C-alpha cells in the first residue's frame, strides 16, 4: 500500500512547491474579483479584476490578502487567489458516449445494492427495482449535465439589481 501512496504524494509535494512565477505573485482564480481599500466587505471597492489577473502579495490577515495590482494596493479575499495560474476546465464529457448505458448501469447496479443496504433498505427489495432505477438515474444525471444557460440570459440575470435593496434599514 505504501508503494502506491508514496509516489503520488511525492509528486504532489514537488508540484506544490514549484514556483511558477515570482515568489510573491498570486493569480485571481475566479471569473471576477474585487479589490477593497480595507480587509472588509463594507470598505470602498478600488478595482474589479478578471480571472488570471496577476497581483503581488504584500501581507495576509485572516481571510484577506493585501496585494498590489498594477499601481494600486488593496485587499482581496484570500479564497480567490493562488500562487499558480487558474486551472483550465476539466471535463469527462469528451468521448463519454463510448461508455454505453448498459455498461455503466451494470456497474452501478452493484454499487447501489450496497448503498441501499447501507441506508437500511432490504438488499433484495433494492435489487428487484435495480435495473430500471439505475438506468433512469443515469439518464437523469445526463439530463442535469446537459442543462445549460444562454449567455444573454445569464448576463441579464447578473445585471438585474434588487429594486428593494435601498428600502431595507
Amino acid at each position, binding site marked *: *500500500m505504501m508503494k*502506491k*501512496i508514496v509516489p503520488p*504524494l511525492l*509528486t*504532489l*509535494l514537488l*508540484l*506544490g512547491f514549484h514556483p511558477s512565477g515570482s515568489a510573491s505573485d498570486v493569480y485571481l*482564480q*475566479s*471569473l*471576477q*474579483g*474585487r479589490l477593497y481599500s*480595507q480587509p*472588509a*466587505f*463594507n470598505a470602498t471597492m478600488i478595482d474589479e479584476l478578471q480571472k488570471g489577473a496577476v497581483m503581488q502579495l504584500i501581507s495576509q490577515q*485572516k*481571510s484577506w490578502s493585501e496585494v498590489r495590482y498594477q499601481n494600486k494596493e488593496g485587499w482581496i*479575499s484570500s*479564497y*480567490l487567489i493562488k500562487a499558480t495560474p*487558474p*486551472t*483550465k*476546465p*476539466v*471535463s*469527462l464529457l469528451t468521448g463519454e458516449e463510448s*461508455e454505453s448505458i448498459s455498461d455503466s448501469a451494470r*456497474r*452501478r447496479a*452493484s*454499487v*447501489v445494492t*450496497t*448503498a*441501499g443496504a*447501507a*441506508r437500511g433498505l432490504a438488499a433484495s427489495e433494492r435489487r428487484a427495482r435495480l435495473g430500471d432505477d*439505475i438506468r*433512469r*438515474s*443515469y439518464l*437523469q*444525471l445526463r439530463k*442535469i449535465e446537459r*442543462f445549460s*444557460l444562454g449567455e444573454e*440570459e*445569464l448576463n441579464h*440575470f*447578473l445585471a438585474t*439589481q*434588487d429594486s*428593494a*435593496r435601498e428600502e*431595507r434599514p
Partner: protein
Amino acid sequence: MIRHLSHFIFLSLLLSSSVTAETATGANNNFRQRISQTTLINDADIAEDIRAEISFGRELATVVISDYPLLENLELQRYLNLVMQRLLQFGDRQELTYHIAILNSDEVNAYTTPGGYIFVSRGALKEMQDEAELAAVIAHEIAHVNRRHIVNELQIRGEADPLQAGIGQFFAGFSDAARVALEQAIDTALDLLFGNGLKQADEFDADASSTLLLAQAGYDATALERYLQRIAPLQGESMRVLVTTHPTFADRISRLAAIYQQEGITAAHGDRHQQRFTRHFHRS
C-alpha cells in the same frame, strides 16, 4: 473513457480503503490531521486528480438520484442555475462545471457530491423566503466542493502514470477488486451525506467560506443565519438527516455572527431579490 473511469476510481479507492482501515483502529484523528495538512500544502490542481474527483462525484450523484426522485421543473431548474452561476463568478475552481437539481423530497436539506453536483430538496426550498437564502444554501454546497471536503476525507486521487499503479489489468473492464473498492468508497461517502456527516470543522468551514462567497457575489451575506434561524425549531422526519449530519444550529449561528462581525458584513448590504424569488416559486 471507461478505461479512464475505472482506473481513476480504482486508484483513488485503493487509497481510500487505507483511510477506512485507519479509522477502524481509532487512530483516525491524527491520521486525518496529517492527511489534511498534506492536502493543504499541495492543493493539487492536477488534471488527473480533478478527473478522478468528477468521476467519483458522478457515481455518487447517480446513487443519490436513485434514492431521491428529482423534481422535473425546467423553470425552477433554470432559476437555481442562474443563482448558482451568479455565485460561481466568484468561485475559485473554474476548472469544474457545476450542475444543480431539485430533489422531490419533503426533507429539509441540500447535498453535494465531489466535482460539482449539487442537490437542493423541495422541503428546503419551501422554507426559504428570498433569493439570498437560496444562494446561501447553494453557496454552502459549493463550498463543500471547492474546499474538497469529501475528496480529502476519502483521499480521492488520480494517477498520472497508469503503469506505476499496475492498472493495465483493469482496462478490459471493471474488475471485481475495483468494484468492491468503489462500493466501499460510495458507502463511506453516503455515510458522510446521510449518516454521521462530515467533520464538524468542515461544516463550519463551509459556513464561513460560503458567507464570503455570498458577500463577494453581492448577496445579503447574513442570509444563511436567517435561514438557519427559521429552520432550527422544525422537528420530525424531514429534519432528521440535516440534524444528524450537521453541528447544532446554535453553534453554527453563533459562529456566523462572529464572521459577520469580523468581515464587516451587515444585513443592510447586498441583494435579497425577494420579489424575483417569490415570482419564480408562485409561477412553478
